């Protein structure tokens, strides 16, 4: 499991260094996923590079992948649990016409991966989430479309179509493991930015990213795009965007239940020092 996480987040890292001078395996270098190896709850986005992190916005009610600096960020997936996908929640295939086709009513709050293939028939179809959620509507897809959407208990995830006759769609819908951060209020969303070549979130002083975590004391660490690392503890955290000054940046953050040990703090500082200093 430990090796899987490393392989998933660090290209080219095989989980060991090979035989050392004495013919034994060297210890693994630190990786933030190690902080969650015992299943501790927390949140770690793994930075905000839009080619690596699946960041989402819901500008004007339409879900879209965040792809460039200057775009608002509404959903930040948590990678502390490896982003494992839950069981399939959709029926295999639907034949639909003009009516909205219910796919699943969310029983639990979470981030759902919704993708769909149009198998046959005339017309267009798109995924749609109803309140309470920040899912809203995806753009019509010509063939295949995928999105991660936040839904809360009672939110209906459905297919919205303009098909006049039978249109055959094959959606898949699965819950993504983790404690994901989101912001429903449009003007309270941070902006994706790039500073000195480093991807980060930039706040206008009033932004935040809501997060729901089990109660307790958490170790909290965050790093700015300039490489300034801050480590402290927080009780019952509800926000995954830490800086609050106008124009301040956050290049990564770690929230982990239980204060960091001095060794862990040193490992975090060294890890981010190699990425952002």
């Amino acid at each position, binding site marked *: 499991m430990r090796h899987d996480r490393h392989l998933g987040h660090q290209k080219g890292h095989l989980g060991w260094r090979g035989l050392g001078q004495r013919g034994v395996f060297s210890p693994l270098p630190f990786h933030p996923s190690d902080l969650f190896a015992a299943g501790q709850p927390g949140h770690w986005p793994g930075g905000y590079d839009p080619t690596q992190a699946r960041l989402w916005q*819901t500008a004007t009610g339409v879900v879209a992948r965040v792809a460039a600096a200057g775009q608002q960020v509404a959903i930040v997936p948590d990678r502390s649990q490896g982003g494992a996908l839950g069981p399939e929640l959709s029926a295999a295939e639907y034949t639909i016409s003009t009516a909205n086709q219910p796919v699943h009513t969310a029983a639990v709050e979470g981030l759902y991966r919704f993708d769909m293939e149009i198998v046959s028939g005339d017309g267009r179809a798109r995924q749609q989430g109803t309140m309470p959620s920040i899912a809203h509507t995806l753009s019509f897809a010509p063939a295949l479309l995928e999105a991660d959407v936040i839904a809360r208990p009672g939110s209906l995830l459905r297919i919205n179509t303009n098909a006049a006759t039978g249109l055959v769609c094959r959606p898949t819908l699965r819950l993504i493991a983790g404690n994901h951060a989101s912001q429903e209020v*449009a003007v*309270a969303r941070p902006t994706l930015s790039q500073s000195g070549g480093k991807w980060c979130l930039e706040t206008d002083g009033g932004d935040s990213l809501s997060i729901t975590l089990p109660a307790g004391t958490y170790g909290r660490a965050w790093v700015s795009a300039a490489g300034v690392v801050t480590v402290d503890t927080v009780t019952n955290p509800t926000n995954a965007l830490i800086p609050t000054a106008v124009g301040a940046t956050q290049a990564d953050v770690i929230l982990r239940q239980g204060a960091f040990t001095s060794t862990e703090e040193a490992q975090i500082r060294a890890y981010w020092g190699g990425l952002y200093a």
Partner: protein
Amino acid sequence: MPDQIRITIACPLAHLDDAAQFSRATGYSAADEATFTISPEYRDAAGNRYRVASGLVAAVYPANAAAPLTAPEWGADMAAAARAQALIRIGGPAAPGQITAVIGEDVSAALAELGLTRIDPV
């Protein structure tokens, strides 16, 4: 013309309830009712207090917000929203009897134009 613009809005504390309904009526979801609720508090030189929200909106938002309001699909108190709409002024400084909006990318410049300082500085 960009797809989105930044708008910074100062709402006096006395008008927060009506502003919440205006945000709900002109926003992108019912959640936008909380626009000022979760915003930080500022004050002007005279000590009047405001909540200030700043964020990216669709470029057409200012025009839509000034036009006659229509109820959103998620519902809103449109009488309260209209009261707030009547108080909106474009350009600073902020004043207790109006909801003041500044359009521009630079948030610090917008706050300076509004003449506001954060009550709980960071």
